[in-house]
């Protein structure tokens, strides 16, 4: 059976990682979007957004990690 028919090994980590990364970017942009936040709230948004973006990057790395004979989607 070809990979295109292997429904669940279709880069779930990669594609969901992109979504989480985008949500992280929106979170990082919140303090700069005109919303009134205290310094502590701003820090919290930056921390949370940073975690999501870093997590997304890790999912990218997981997807493209070398596996001996080349890369394989997760």
């Amino acid at each position, binding site marked *: 059976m070809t990979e295109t028919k292997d429904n669940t*090994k279709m880069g779930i980590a990669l594609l969901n990682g992109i979504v989480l990364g985008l949500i992280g970017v929106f979170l990082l942009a919140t303090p700069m979007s005109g919303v009134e936040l205290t310094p502590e709230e701003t820090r919290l948004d930056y921390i949370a957004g940073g975690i999501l973006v870093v997590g997304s990057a890790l999912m990218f790395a997981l997807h493209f990690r070398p596996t001996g004979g080349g890369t394989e989607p997760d």
Partner: protein
Amino acid sequence: MEPVFGLTLTEWGMMITFVAAVIWWGFRMHGGTTTMADAFLAGRKVPGFIASLSTVATNLNGNDFLGGVGMAYGFGLVAIHGFFFQGFTLIFVSLVVIHRLRALNVYSLGGWLEHRYCPAIGNAYSYVWTFIWMLFNLGLYIYAGALVMHTLLGWDLYLSIVLLSFVAAFYTLLGGLGAVVATDVLQVCLMFFPLTFVSVACFLHVGGFSGLSEQLDQLPQLTADTINKNNMWAWHTPFGILPLMFVGRMCLGTSYWATEAQVVQRPLSAKDPDAARVSYMGASLWYIILVPFVIVLPGLTAAVMFPGLESNDHAMPELIRTFLPRGLYGVAIVGLTAGFLSSADSQINAFCTMFTADVYRRHFGKNRDDKHYLMVSKIAGVIFTICAIGTALLVSTNSSGMMVFAVGVLATIMPPFGAITIMGALFRFIHSRAALIGLYTSGVVAVGLVFASNMGMLKSIAEIDMEFRALITFTVASVVTVIASFVLPRPKSDIVVEGPHKMIELTPLATRYTIAILVVTLIAYVFWTISFS
């Protein structure tokens, strides 16, 4: 900049990104859904870890986050036992039941019950779940999700009901279980991520475990007989005396994990037997380790910070409003939306599976090709969703009564089927005639207990009598089935399997997971007991 329809600009960006992603998964997985196995069980190729995430996402939804926090808010630390016991019940069902279902390549428990016993029992399960339980349950999911939108964002309740239903049905019917599983992975991340921040904020605000414990000690006792919310080992609990609660929880949890169609699909869709075990056993580690921190801890904090709330279910929304700034607040809203969708999509897919495989193919359209069955499943899925919107609207007219009713239905229908499933999996001598008698007898007992509960006759045993009713019903079904198997002759139509019979399937991986879960549960019990002593 002021929020528009409850969300700021960047929060709208998050919500649109999430909704676009789940719909995109529907299109992405659509090309691979050419057979029933592809559409209903993701081609039986789901890796174990992904299946375990999907199990968690399917089972935990906004109701659980709101209701679970509400339970800890209302009843205290004793609510934690329910999550720890998931480990025991998931081990048991994984070792006893799952491999037998997979061996027959069935699409649902109904197919296995038909083979193991007789068509009457298989049909009873299929019809009750397809046309009664799932319809009502999906309506509840949709209503609860819409209520969150209405409460936290001010959206129109009825518009929210329609929107949530449309989104869930669209990507589920398009992409099948593959889309459901893929979105579950995203949804479990979005459910837990913001609530982790809430939990950490709660922990710091109340001064850690010692500070929380001191403040809980100062709260009024629940009743004259109960010790305060700080004690997880009180003899008298709202669920009955502690041993009753434990045994009842085992009966209810075992029945749930063995019979609830949408969760059983996870191990059935796994790529091999070991992945099937991981799908359940891996999920249990989430319940034991993580869920108490994101559900019980916030609930206890809310009990200290917001005593006297109108409803226990208001505890989580109050915590979100208090601790999460704009931005993270939007992630929490997306997370709660994800929670509802993760359960609704599973319910829709489970309905399509059971209706098509267990009802339509069995009775109305035999020997047709997969293309025909997939078309039928999609039409049925649309009709089911429309009917569930109707159920959601009905629930909206009497929400508290309906939710209590739903919990009652759960405690009524699951234990009888759970018992005959477990008995049939464990003991080869159980035959169909005995199982039918056990099912009917326990059904009568279950309905009788419903009336007794409604008349307040069970109040002296337990304020929340779900565990007690499950215990009685499960026990009656098991005992009657076993006795009837010895007393009555086996029907000639029963399929008799020769050869050695293994009651449990204990592979090396299953052994490792079982030991790990038991050790982790023990550590968790010691940790939480010491933290609140």
